[in-house]
């Protein structure tokens, strides 16, 4: 063993012994616990709030045949009011942004009927922002869309508001809940 390695061993050993002398196992466990809780809380911070809106397990698409069950198709059932490039074709999924982009916390929301169970689901069309246009799987569907002067119900707008970048890359279709008419 070289002198350099021996010296390093000595430093590390002395550090470890000092740490053991001055730190109880209980305090180590409490700090480890705090770190784990802190890690669990990270997704609740504002940066991840847009992605955290999904509350409902999405309905099962396995029984759907053809385009209505294909997240890379404009005819996919969730895409009944989407306007933009599908994140499913751009390195993300129907409910997750591609790496390197940020989901806009502001969005426009509509409902789409699932062809399997016949229920109307509340769908949030969030833009993913921070990279230039994906240019794959361009879709324009307009169920429930309103004219531009009703901005909250218009999907021609770029919805990269409240994000670090205004550049839009693609759009997701996140299931938020089931709509029931009472």
């Amino acid at each position: 063993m070289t002198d350099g390695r021996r010296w390093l061993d000595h430093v590390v050993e002395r550090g470890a012994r000092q740490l053991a002398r001055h730190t109880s196992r209980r305090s180590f466990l409490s700090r480890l616990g705090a770190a784990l809780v802190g890690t669990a809380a990270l997704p609740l911070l504002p940066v991840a709030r847009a992605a955290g809106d999904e509350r409902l397990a999405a309905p099962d698409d396995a029984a759907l045949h053809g385009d209505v069950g294909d997240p890379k198709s404009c005819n996919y059932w969730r895409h009944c009011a989407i306007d933009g490039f599908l994140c499913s074709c751009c390195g993300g999924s129907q409910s997750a942004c591609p790496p390197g982009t940020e989901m806009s916390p502001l969005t426009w929301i509509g409902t789409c009927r699932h062809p399997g169970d016949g229920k109307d689901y509340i769908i949030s069309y969030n833009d993913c922002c921070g990279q230039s246009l994906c240019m794959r799987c361009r879709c324009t569907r307009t169920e429930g869309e309103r004219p531009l002067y009703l901005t909250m119900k218009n999907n021609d707008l770029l919805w990269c508001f409240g994000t670090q970048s205004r550049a839009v890359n693609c759009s997701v279709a996140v299931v938020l809940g089931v709509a029931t008419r009472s």
Partner: protein
Amino acid sequence: MLAPVLAAAQGTSGAALDYAVTCQGCHRADGTGTPGTVPALAGSVGKFLRVPGGREFLVRVPGVAQAPLDDAALAAVINWMLARFGGDDVPGGLAPYAAEEVGRLRRRPLTDVERVRRELLEAIGRAR
């Protein structure tokens, strides 16, 4: 965390559904908005009811007045928002918004929203 999950599983209807598809896209499910871009409802909306002109403002503000809902549905959404996000700020014994009142107010939209909002916020600040 469990309550929203149960609510979502049971389905969303009525004023809660109208809020989800008409307002929530900007104001968020929890009413917190987006600082600097969209005002928060949570911890804020009820304060407007404590100053003169605030009750009218909550209907005449463009996002409410122009919402694609009829007068009765709009009144129900506003009452739902106050119950959900108003908290202790809502004065006790407050009369809920009625369809007739909402219909009358929304036909007089605000032409200078920023000024009116600023003046109301100043009044809210003084009333503390």
